[in-house]
């Protein structure tokens, strides 16, 4: 059971890291072989334009996983910084950070993402901004709560009294103590981001075609799912396995 999360994450990791090197061009169309079922020639079959599902999946994995990691890095990098500074300074800075987090949290997550991403006109920047903003409040609150406990501890206060430079104190002495718990939560955030990006891609608000992305691959294949179920099932299975793997990984770590 201990290896289950890694087993679930393995297909996405392998496909994303190695796939694009081996797989054929994800945009090449074999119009004589549209909607071919999985076989020796096409390991996961082809889609409605005769493009290899496996090749598209390999590229889509890079796009989906890369974007999810980028969103989480932005949200958790920024949120942790704000949270630690708020815990250190207290007073109005802390109140400001907490109220801002409250307000962002009061907005339903996917709705926030939809509005930001949709209004910025789709595309990658809008997508990343939307998903990152939706995750920011959790990062802010959690790092503030954790840092408040650490800041109060004697060694931090000793450093403060000794007149150590504050940025070094916060980054070298406070931050490392928060990392294990923050990393666990951030892993859950990656799963959440993967789901949000896929949902937006499915609605047609995420990435613009023909760049393959998990949610969009599923959406594009919906009209053909009766005669070519593999075009939906392959990206779907990869998506679910990856999300489940991330969630189980976070649970095992906590």
């Amino acid at each position, binding site marked *: 059971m201990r290896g289950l999360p890694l087993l679930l994450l393995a297909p996405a990791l392998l496909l994303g890291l190695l796939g694009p090197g081996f797989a054929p061009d994800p945009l090449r169309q074999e119009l004589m072989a549209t909607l071919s079922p999985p076989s020796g020639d096409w390991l996961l079959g082809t889609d409605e334009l005769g493009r290899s599902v496996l090749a598209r999946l390999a590229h889509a994995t890079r796009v989906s996983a890369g974007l999810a990691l980028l969103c989480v890095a932005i949200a958790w990098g920024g949120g942790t910084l704000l949270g630690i500074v708020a815990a250190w300074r207290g007073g109005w800075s802390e109140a400001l950070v907490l109220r801002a987090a409250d307000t962002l949290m009061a907005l*339903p997550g996917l*709705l926030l993402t939809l509005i930001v991403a949709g209004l910025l006109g789709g595309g990658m920047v809008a997508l990343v901004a939307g998903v990152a903003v939706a995750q920011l409040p959790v990062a802010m609150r959690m790092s503030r709560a954790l840092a408040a406990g650490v800041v109060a501890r004697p060694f931090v206060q000793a450093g403060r009294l000794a007149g150590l430079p504050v940025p070094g104190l916060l980054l070298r002495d406070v931050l490392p103590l928060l990392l294990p718990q923050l990393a666990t939560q951030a892993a859950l955030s990656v799963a959440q981001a993967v789901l949000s990006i896929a949902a937006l891609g499915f609605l047609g608000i995420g990435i613009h075609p023909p760049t393959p992305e998990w949610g969009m691959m599923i959406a594009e294949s919906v009209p053909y799912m*009766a005669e070519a179920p593999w075009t939906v099932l392959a990206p779907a299975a990869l998506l679910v396995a990856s999300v489940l793997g991330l969630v189980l990984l976070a649970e095992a770590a906590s």
Partner: protein
Amino acid sequence: MGQLIGALAARLAQLVAMLLAVVLLCFAAMQALPGDKAVQLAVARHGERAGEDGIARASRDGGFDRPVAAQFADWAGQVLRLDLGHSLVSRRPVVDELWPRLRVTLIAGGLSVLLGVLVGVPLGAWAGLRPGGVVDGAVAVAAALFSAVPAFLLGLLLVMLFAIRLGWLPAAGGGTALHWVLPICTLAVGFAAPLARVTRQAVVEAWGAFPVTFGRLKGLSPVRAGLRHGVRNAAIPVVMLTGLRFAAVIEGFAVIETLFNLPGLGDLLVRALVSRDIPTVQAAALLFGLLYGVVGLVLDAACAAIDPRRRLRVHPA
């Protein structure tokens, strides 16, 4: 009592601030939008045949030719008078479009929450009463799996199975009650999975806690001890999650309604976003925010009713 009123007032103030944030966010994002809004609107209305005068008319109707501050002041004043303006695409009052769609979303959302509770809570409680048992294991696996499947995918898989493979239910559209079965089930399953997990955890904790043990020690049967001293404690996280997920269910409708072609609020929001219909986007987002806020208020009140400790400080940080 004074404390309770104070806490409720603070909660209401928070709700108003949140709605204001939604309005501002929508407006700011609309302004930051790339591309000429008048051209996009004209194309959304007339398709490719929108000529110069179509664009000029769209610019005038949308007020795009006026200063940003004036556009915002106009909109904010109208909202206060509950006049949400006219849809830029259909040109009908936005309010008229909202009500029938709100009904669809509320009915389907309410039914799916109800179904989710009816499935999730008993399963979670059953698992929690015998932690480590067969039911516990099965519920844990099912809950983890269904939590990892996004709503749109679950809906698709159900369509593949019940509409295409088996042909028992219609795949999309509205009209008969049968059209509602798949969307409601999709949302209900997505809701029941986390609910079963939380219920299981709450039951394990409440039944292992001192009050239930004490009830057993003073001679109550296990069932009576649990009912008398366990249920209330276990209910708090379950009620909180139900409220939180109700909001997620409303949200999930943005995706599910698009998938199943149900004419609800989420479908309206997505369509309006794609065609850049500003008044409709703002009105739908505002209504979503209001729903979310009202559910939060009801949730706090329900928790206070269950747990007397919370009546002292209704809104813990």
